[in-house]
């Protein structure tokens, strides 16, 4: 029963970090942009969220727990989105407009994001973070009385559900709408999309900015919900960012599968802490499992070779209109 009572609920919780990062990255990759800057973008999202929280909480310094739930969630999301947007803009400008190498730009963004968040987090007033986290984490009161069922389905803060909703909406848009069709065509063959009159640059910018915002929420969720408002350094967030990138491959570029995939990753991630009597080495080996599985998935999809489970064809390539 410990599995359903404790392990699965916390796996779902941790999965949300992967889920945000993964869905954001999928949107970008569907436009043909491989953004290795996800860990950096998540750092920006974290920083933004923390800035928002600390501004908002400063007006409730006498009784921090009385801060309104809705206002706090909204402000933290807004600030997080704003900061991730900046990161997204940097990436989009460099790779779409200036057509820089996407891998180099992404990696630079990762290091940059880590540096920025480490630098500025030390200047932010973090004293109310634990209170803010309690408020953001608020879940429906009846969840506790429903046992394991309640814990799994109702025992999470709003951000967990936001992640799942975003994943489902993204899946719907990509699969069912004309916007999704156009976006996917750009990731597959931008020259064709261009010839059909689709504004490639507009779509790429849109996908990168929206994707960045979503990925940034992952960082916000990590600090304000998952770890309860404490702060160590950017390294902890970036580790999740890399796993989110792996998850994109694991879910074969499908946001709906990302929901399940992220929970599986989450399970692998926390399981070692619940298995008693294993050595330190075994624990580390268990933590490697998500990466190992990703590699296996990659091998399987390459062997199967079905076009439906391949990455977008023009992923990672800049589009030059003149080379027609």
């Amino acid at each position, binding site marked *: 029963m410990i599995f359903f009572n404790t392990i699965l609920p916390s796996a779902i919780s941790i999965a949300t970090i992967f889920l945000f990062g993964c869905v954001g990255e999928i949107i970008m990759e569907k436009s043909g942009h491989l953004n290795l800057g996800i860990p950096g973008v998540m750092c920006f999202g974290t920083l933004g969220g923390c800035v928002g929280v600390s501004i908002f909480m400063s007006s409730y310094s006498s009784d921090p727990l009385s801060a309104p739930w809705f206002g706090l969630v909204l402000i933290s999301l807004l600030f997080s989105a704003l900061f991730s947007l900046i990161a997204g803009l940097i990436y989009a400008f460099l790779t779409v407009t200036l057509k820089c190498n996407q891998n180099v730009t992404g990696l630079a963004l990762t290091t940059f994001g880590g540096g920025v968040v480490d630098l500025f987090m030390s200047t932010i007033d973090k004293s109310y973070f634990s209170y803010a986290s309690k408020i953001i984490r608020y879940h429906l009161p009846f969840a506790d009385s429903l046992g394991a069922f309640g814990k799994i389905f109702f025992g999470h803060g709003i951000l967990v559900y936001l992640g799942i909703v975003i994943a489902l909406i993204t899946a719907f848009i990509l699969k069912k709408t004309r916007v999704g*069709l156009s976006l*996917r065509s750009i990731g597959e063959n931008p020259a*064709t999309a261009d010839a059909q*009159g*689709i504004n490639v640059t507009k779509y790429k910018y849109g996908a990168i900015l929206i994707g960045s915002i979503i990925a940034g929420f992952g960082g916000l969720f990590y600090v304000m919900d998952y770890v309860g408002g404490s702060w160590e350094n950017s390294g902890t967030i970036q580790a999740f960012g890399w796993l989110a990138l792996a998850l994109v491959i694991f879910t074969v570029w499908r946001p709906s599968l990302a929901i399940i995939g992220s929970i599986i990753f989450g399970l692998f991630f926390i399981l070692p802490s619940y298995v008693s009597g294993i050595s330190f080495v075994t624990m580390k080996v268990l933590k490697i499992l998500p990466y190992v599985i990703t590699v296996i998935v990659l091998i399987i999809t390459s062997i199967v070779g079905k076009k439906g489970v391949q990455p977008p064809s023009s992923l990672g390539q800049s589009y030059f209109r003149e080379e027609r």
Partner: protein
Amino acid sequence: MVAKNNTKNINITFENISKSFGVVKANQNVNLDIYEGEILALLGENGSGKTTLMNMLSGIYYPDEGNIYVKGEKVNIASPKDAFSYHIGMIHQHFKLIDVFTSLENIVLGIESNVSKKQKWSYFFKNFYKKKEDRETKYIDRASVKDARPIVQEICDKYGFILDLDKKVYDMSVSEKQTLEIVKTLYRGADILILDEPTAVLTPIEIDKLFNVLRNMKNDGKSIIIITHKLNEVMEISDRVAVLRKGECIGSVVTKNTNEAELTEMMVGEKIELNIKRDEPVNPVDRLIVKDLECKNEDGREILHDVSFTARSGEILGIAGISGSGQKELLETIAGLIKGSSGEITYINPKTDKEVNLRSKSPAQIRDLGVRLSFVPEDRLGMGLVGNMDLVDNMMLRSYRKSKSHLVDRKKPTELANEVVNELGVSTPSIHTSVRKLSGGNVQKVLVGREIASHPKVLMVAYPVRGLDINSSYLIYNLLNEQKKKGTAIIYVGEDLDVLIALSDRILVIGDGEVRGLVDARKTTKREIGLLMTKKNEGGLDDDK
């Protein structure tokens, strides 16, 4: 249905259209009318400007000079989108389809909705609570995959296309993809359809099918333009033929009133005297003997079929043929880049007179056998040189493996680079400039200079003067002639028949991967070569339709 020429309306008029790319004039003062309900064949050699002309109609290029009229009205076509608004659609040789999408998704991709958001919402609010049978008739959104299905089906039935609307493009054959492209263009409302060499990739049965739907479309009043250089197809399908030569429109004739010989003459034109000096070969001996060479491409389609010829020392063997007839594959098979499936490539070593078989050997193995083979490929910056490296490093590419030391020796390549720059007059800021920054002609000089410096016994050059100006071209011809004097066997693949006739000693004509004939360049005519190139049944100048 017999075309009634006098009652037909003019659909498109080209007036004095000119277009050049740098120094190359692709089109010069082209005047051409296209009528409603006809199939016009646009005939011409490679590089005669057929595709460029049509690209201007479909909005990919913009003419430098001249006007285009659609139905008597002067128009400005700046993009493919503009072309569609005038009901012009082009089907390119390389299909513009998204592999992972279905036919239907490809067809509606990028179409702007004809239904406004307001209409959609008002329909939704008026009807969403009603039962299915009580609802108003819904609008038809041409941009929606669901609504497009019956319309597309109707188009297919009308003209006789066979197309599975839910099949993914990656599962399709080339012919199916082409069908999809045509249907897609028709769905966008095209009345004027341009097909760029539509039969190049099809089997004979598929060609028949294509011609049938083209006739159906013609009878429906659509104008169809086929870009081609296959004479038999021109005779079979077209109502009228317009011939382009070196960017100029030579004229148009009604297909019924002409024959293949006349068209060939229009296509190749009068002989132009070129001032290329040609020495008699000095005691030629067999150097490279190719026998029954066969080669397949990735899809298993036969590219070369029973190709046999001999290249002799001190002689230039020209290879003529329509582009894509297997020239590239032939040279690459000899160079060891492609593995031939059967046949023999025998190299006779001039010093020892020993024979070596080169087929299925890698370039490195060929070199280790002591075979002095040089190859100047068509794709200069892709296969020949490394664009981002400077002249010295590019010179070194050919020789660094010879050194025994682990460190590279830059001294000799630097000397060679200087030599090439001085002797061939390469204009470059320095020998340490990356090759990518040089102009096309200078890049070619660097490449040819390097290959010649290795004192080859067999030198293969593919389209060496493509994109070069007159002076650079003559320089290359002279270099080849010098090599000829030194006893090198030269294989020259070219597209300009005048140059081939003036430069080569013998000319091998290939078509569809087969040898169509071997002629003496001193005695042959352009017409003879042209006919060998374009006609399936070789030789017969007289068997007109």
